[in-house]
């Protein structure tokens, strides 16, 4: 299994600060997704990046796919308490006639008011 390492594993910051979460692998992925999971709930898709070097923005969140499609980053500007949650990256690899999604190790973010 190709592992997707996320860093940092835990992050506790004050409201208004900026932060970046990294998702790294030695393998190439067809696409990279970012999900957010809140306590007691399942993960919810935030964004999918497909092209190497692609940058997508979702309000205060900026997602980037590495040029070699092996890594990705999530940058949050002016974090708010509502951003608190578990952030998971997931890479897609072709496997036996379908895409298999491999999830990263997760980053737990807590934004303090």
């Amino acid at each position, binding site marked *: 299994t190709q592992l997707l390492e996320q860093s940092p594993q835990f992050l506790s910051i004050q409201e208004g600060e900026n932060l970046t979460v990294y998702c790294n692998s030695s393998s190439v*992925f*067809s*696409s990279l*997704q970012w999900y957010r*999971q809140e306590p*007691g*709930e*399942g*993960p*919810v*898709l935030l964004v*999918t990046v*497909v092209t190497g070097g692609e940058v997508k923005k979702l309000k205060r969140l900026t997602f980037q796919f590495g040029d070699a499609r092996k890594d990705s980053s999530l940058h949050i500007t002016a974090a708010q308490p509502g951003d608190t949650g*578990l952030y*998971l990256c997931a890479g*897609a690899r*072709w*496997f*036996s*006639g*379908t*895409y*298999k*999604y*491999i*999830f990263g*190790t*997760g980053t*737990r973010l807590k934004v303090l008011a």
Partner: protein
Amino acid sequence: DTAVSQTPKYLVTQMGNDKSIKCEQNLGHDTMYWYKQDSKKFLKIMFSYNNKELIINETVPNRFSPKSPDKAHLNLHINSLELGDSAVYFCASSQDDGRSNTEAFFGQGTRLTVV
């Protein structure tokens, strides 16, 4: 009107018992999955079904047997439960259109505790 629903939400049972978790999706998707999330929040795929056919079967003990009676349902039966089976199990579904940017919709999870 929940898109992916799984029952029960919580399950506490003794070692050695057999239990089932049910999952239903009303999105019309043709692919369904079971994932296991451990205490460190690592989410790992267990099984994937497409139109009732098993297409991904990770290294999962034979005690775990998925069953898909139709493409809207994917149930998970676990025999002879062990302490290490304690985790949160997530069902998910997606529309497999041959692209790599398919969105997976997850259920709320079933927290299984084996005592």
